[in-house]
């Protein structure tokens, strides 16, 4: 009897339904956007590419031998001589491989993507911390951005912007932004309520309370978020390489295609060294915020 009902439903109710057209709709939407909003997409593309190329050129302006010293100096200022030594040796290894130029290109891409992601993430995080409704709307959107496989949105992005650096940067921004927003919101919400009240009680305006009290107190958490943003951006370089993003990603993709272990290892180790450099420098900067210093003093 149950079998009969199941068969009947399958034959006369479910099968006659047309295929779900969600995918087709998205396809149409993207095609329409590409035509109707062409100036916007072209503008975005020009903007991102000019940023990227300017930075990549700047990083390659000095010979690798001097750049190694610059990186070591940054590490020294941010953290200390030990990190400076590690970074110096690491960068020296990279400069010894044939992938120095592509490493700088990848660094430029990561920096452009993280700076833009930060510029977007912090205001959104502030809005979400001040407004419960905004926070409730943002949460599923952020989950979506982080869990949707990159390949899924890479396709429409490539359709909109064509192959090259731009889709790589945009895909990276989409993927790496969520922790920036989340930790900005968290950091601001964790600020001692009494301290915020004190600012208000002394007649501080909302803008001043935000800039002079809440943000400085939230800064260590915000910086932890930015660190995650950078690491996620770095993890996207390979995928960006698949759509012509250049840099180490392209090397790794081509090494994969040709089973070129030597090339894959060289490019891979360059990514790791970049990651160590960026992570430790960010950590060093986070430890230097006044609030983090004061917190260390308390223990």
């Amino acid at each position, binding site marked *: 009897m149950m079998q009969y009902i199941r068969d009947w439903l399958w034959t006369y109710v479910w099968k006659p339904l047309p295929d779900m057209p969600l995918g087709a709709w998205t396809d149409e939407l993207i095609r329409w956007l590409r035509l109707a909003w062409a100036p916007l997409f072209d503008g975005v593309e020009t903007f991102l590419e000019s940023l990227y190329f300017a930075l990549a050129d700047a990083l390659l302006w000095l010979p690798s031998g001097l750049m190694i010293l610059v990186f070591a100096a940054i590490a020294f200022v941010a953290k200390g001589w030990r990190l400076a030594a590690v970074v110096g040796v690491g960068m020296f290894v990279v400069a010894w491989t044939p992938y120095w130029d592509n490493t700088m290109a990848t660094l430029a891409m990561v920096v452009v993507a993280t700076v833009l992601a930060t510029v977007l993430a912090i205001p959104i995080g502030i809005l979400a911390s001040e407004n419960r409704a905004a926070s409730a709307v943002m949460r599923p959107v952020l989950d979506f951005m982080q869990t949707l496989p990159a390949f899924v949105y890479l396709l429409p992005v490539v359709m909109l912007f064509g192959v090259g650096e731009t889709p790589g940067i945009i895909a990276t921004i989409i993927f790496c932004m969520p922790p920036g927003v989340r930790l900005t919101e968290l950091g601001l919400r964790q600020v001692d309520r*009494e301290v915020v*009240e004190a600012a208000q009680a002394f007649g501080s305006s909302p803008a001043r309370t935000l800039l002079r009290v809440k943000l400085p107190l939230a800064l260590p958490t915000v910086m932890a978020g930015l660190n995650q943003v950078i690491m996620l951006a770095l993890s996207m370089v390979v995928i960006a390489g698949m759509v012509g993003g250049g840099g180490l990603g392209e090397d790794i993709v081509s090494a994969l295609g040709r089973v070129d272990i030597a090339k894959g290892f060289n490019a891979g180790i360059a990514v790791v060294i970049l990651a160590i450099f960026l992570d430790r420098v960010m950590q060093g900067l986070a430890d230097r915020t*006044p609030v983090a210093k004061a917190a260390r003093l308390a223990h």
Partner: protein
Amino acid sequence: MPAIAVESLYKVFGKGAKGAVAQLRSGVPREALNSRNVTAAVIDHNWEIAPGEIFVVMGLSGSGKSTLIRMLNGLIKPTAGTIRIDGVDLGSLSPRELRRLRREKISMVFQHFALLPHRSVLENVAFGLEIKGLDKAARLERAREAVQLVGLEGHEDKLPAQLSGGMKQRVGLARALAADTEILLMDEAFSALDPLIRQEMQDQLLDLQSKLAKTIVFITHDLNEAMRIGDRIAVCDGEVKQLGTAEDLLLHPADDYVAEFTADVDRSRVLTAEAVMEPCGGTDTSEFPTVESGVPVNELYEPVLNSKAPLLVVDDNDDPLGVVTPRSIIKSLAHEPAADDERASDDEEALPA
């Protein structure tokens, strides 16, 4: 003009707050409301504070005292009723005007100090002045004065994390004093401190008050503290259960709620010679040692024990007011005054004439 005046002030939290106020006005008790998703924190407050007065609001947690103090500077909006600061109705002010009022007239001291952890003591003290828009040199100068006032010289450049609780609260107090406002709101300011430090801070507050004569609203859950520093005390449990001086509360508690609180108070410190004396009754008092009417009872023990005659209580003009005997002291220190009176009169009847 009173410094602060509140009139039929209500604050109810939750949905349907206005309806709840109407109910409270019509005489529905607070407990009957709680089942309906609203919490009545402040119920029908009507009082005035004179300039230069220390007004203590005393109540247990959940009695609405923190809500009350936050309504006085507009951090929380009342559900109904009016609050006047120097005659200005807070409800009539725009957010901008309200902020100006806070900058110029009202400062606040917080239970957990609410200091900026990354700023030095001096910068924290200057915080209110920074908001007022003073330039750096001027505000650090004034902050330095305030730091001296609370006795923290030498600690100006330390961070709050390097200070003890009592010192942190001195910074909080200095921050409020530096803002140089007439009104000082103190929200459980000493509650987080050790008992000894707390007493020290109370003394310091009284000492400062004798010089500065601010209008102080002091919130506490500790009746001993309330009686030590308050010119008048409002005992609150949503509504004001009783409003009066420390002696009023001790000698004439309005109801069981107040009486229960006062049961634990060290009466000998609060009651004065005047409050415990008995009438002279026409006896010749010229040989009696004298005490002033305002001396607390705990300073009368020795003179009473060392004197064969009762002590004569005199006013400022040395005119006799009454006499203090060991019996009158013991009687006044016993808890339930009404019951004590009865028992005393019973005893008298039982004694053979």
